[in-house]
């Protein structure tokens, strides 16, 4: 029997090798033949967000105008890149367009799933690409090629409950020391003083926001050397973990959306979060505190050697490389994200950061966080555009979660995190140390 098992395995292996000869010839084809006729419908991959809500609203209008139906295929946030990449690898035109989170852009383009947009951008005058600050144009690029149109521009902001702050006589923090003292006062009054994210999925973003605001960076911008062995990285981590004592219980295993839920339904005094959640918090259907919250800039401290800045996140709208209707997809996206629809996006709280939008006094009155969007669009810090970023975020989040749950001490955790990042970057050949 043993010999039979071994020979079976050998046969299976041989079949595999034979197959490899066939399958490797079917490598990646570039360029899908374009169907120039007007399509009856286009499909867009989206995930729940105010960007999705706004696009759906505009799509109805677009259908009435052009007769082209826009179908929306909704996916969970963390499966968005997977769906795009699998669709591309199977060479099927499942999606014509997609929402793409900025920090996953490089990974998705590495698979060849997205179409470059530069020729459209230079030829389409109505879209007016120069209306976006350079920082925001770079946000949608990998290398020097544009793959994404700004859909929402979301700097990390300080959110606080204005009703609690006026009741306790607090002021929004300008430094992290203020933020901690506010957290103490809030907790003393029986509220949650802060809401950090400490779970194994995504906590790295929140730590990264704190690190950047203290003048530190995850990676060296030029050589991509991990910088978690720096003293500012450690100090930022210590501070980040110390805020856990002011956070709701559930935060110890939370992801970003748990923090959003806590802020909208529980008594959370302050937190750091991307600006795109304005629409959620301002909607009384989703939040108990609509009208009782406000935003301010992220607290900034000059600790590290880099400029302390706020972090820049946000959705991009991209066109699938496998779509047969790329021109039609461009027409829809450039119309939806054009100047004429800026107001619709302002109403739902997360507009693309056009200069003409953020400088419009009427819009600013409606959406007071627009000046912060304008600042961040100019000099906010986006995650490096390298394909390894998704892996770095996952692994670093796990390390943070290990430290927050007491499985690793701060010292050991920082050493492990630095080694994990080094491993990833050396293995991929990104950092040649």
């Amino acid at each position, binding site marked *: 029997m043993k010999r*039979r*098992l071994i020979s*079976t395995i050998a046969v299976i292996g041989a079949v595999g090798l034979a197959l490899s000869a066939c*399958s490797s010839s*079917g490598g990646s084809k570039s360029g899908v033949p374009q169907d120039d006729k007007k399509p009856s419908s286009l*499909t867009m991959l989206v*995930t*729940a*967000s105010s960007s999705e809500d706004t696009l759906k609203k505009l799509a109805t209008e677009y259908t009435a105008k052009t007769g082209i139906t826009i179908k929306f*295929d*909704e*996916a*969970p*946030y963390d499966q968005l890149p997977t*769906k795009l990449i*699998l*669709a591309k*690898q*199977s*060479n*099927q035109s*499942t*999606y014509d367009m997609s929402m793409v989170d900025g920090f996953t852009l490089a990974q998705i383009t590495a698979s060849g799933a997205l179409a470059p947009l530069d020729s459209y951008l230079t030829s389409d005058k109505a879209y007016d690409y120069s209306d976006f600050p350079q920082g925001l144009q770079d946000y949608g690029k990998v290398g020097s090629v544009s793959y994404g149109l700004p859909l929402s521009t979301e700097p990390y902001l300080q959110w606080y409950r204005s009703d609690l702050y006026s009741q306790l006589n607090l002021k929004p923090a300008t430094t992290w020391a203020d933020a901690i003292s506010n957290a103490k006062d809030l907790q003393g009054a029986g509220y949650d003083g802060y809401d950090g994210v400490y779970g194994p999925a995504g906590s790295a973003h929140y730590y990264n926001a704190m690190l950047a605001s203290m003048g530190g960076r995850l990676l060296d911008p030029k050589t991509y050397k991990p910088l978690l062995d720096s003293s500012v990285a450690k100090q930022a981590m210590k501070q980040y973990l110390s805020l856990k004592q002011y956070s709701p219980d559930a935060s110890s295993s939370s992801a*970003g*959306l748990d923090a*959003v*839920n806590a802020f909208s*339904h529980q008594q959370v005094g302050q937190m750091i979060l991307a600006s795109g959640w304005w629409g*959620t918090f301002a909607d009384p259907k*989703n939040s108990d505190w609509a009208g009782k919250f406000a935003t301010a800039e992220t607290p900034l401290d000059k600790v590290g050697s880099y400029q302390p800045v706020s972090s820049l996140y946000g959705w991009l709208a991209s066109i699938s490389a496998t779509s047969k209707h790329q021109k039609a997809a461009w027409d829809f996206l450039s119309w939806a994200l054009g100047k004429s629809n800026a107001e619709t996006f302002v109403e739902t709280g997360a507009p693309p950061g056009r200069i003409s939008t953020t400088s419009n006094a009427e819009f600013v009155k409606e959406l007071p966080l627009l000046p912060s969007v304008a600042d961040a669009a100019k000099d906010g810090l986006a995650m490096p555009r390298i394909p390894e970023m998704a892996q770095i975020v996952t692994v670093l989040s796990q390390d943070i979660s290990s430290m927050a749950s007491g499985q690793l001490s701060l010292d050991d955790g920082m050493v492990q995190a630095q080694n994990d990042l080094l491993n990833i970057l050396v293995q991929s050949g990104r950092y040649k140390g």
Partner: protein
Amino acid sequence: MRRSRVKNTVTHAVLVVASLLAIFPLFWVALASFKNNRDVIDPVTQAFDFVPTAANYVSLFGTPAFVGSALTSVLITVISTLVVVALATLGGYAFARLRFPGRRLLALVMVIVQIIPGIVLIVPLYRLVSGIGLYDQWLPIAVIMAGLTLPFATWLMLAFFQNAPLEIEEAALVDGATRFQLFRHVLIPMVAPGMATAGIFTAIAVWNSFLIPVVLGQSNAETLTVYVAQFVTFQDVNWGPLCATAVLILAPIVLFVLSMQRSLVKGLTAGSLK
């Protein structure tokens, strides 16, 4: 006498507690499925203080994505179950009664398919399926699920055929029955409980499968299990609709199995364990 009464009381008490533990989560989910999004996150102390609403169900049936994935799930489950029961009956008969070439090799391959972790197969299957242009369609999912559940069903049928008396079969052959007649009039009635058991186990496994559909059916061929996982969205965990979907996923399989529970228990007892 008194001791045995105490023993009976204890037995009853333990079984009641265990049954409550087994059923409580379902009850809780069913309860939550009739609450609106507000009531569902109220403190538990007010769990029964709500106005029941069917809104979650109504809106689910108005959602094309839900209806589509429900149809996909039903289709995949029915097709693979039928295929598996048919092939397992043939295969089980062959393993029990015939000495065909490659018998041990086939058994070995089937055991490997049965034991190997699905994660080994998933990427190759994905590449093969997309290679032939069938990515995101229900057919390959049904075929793959049928293949993965076939070994178990075959062993089950093998046991049933082994326990079926050989004499009736031989008498039928002596009377000049064809192979088809033999199956139709003699064998299938004899192993019907086994086919029911195999069908039940296959249906459960296929209906509940997640890893294969989540990779192979992204949009057109999305199953209910994949659909429900989406309720945990970036924006909000919608517990009300989530619970309603959970009820609608769980109800069909629970009702199906309970209605056939007799043959399940009988099948296991009679077939596989002697």
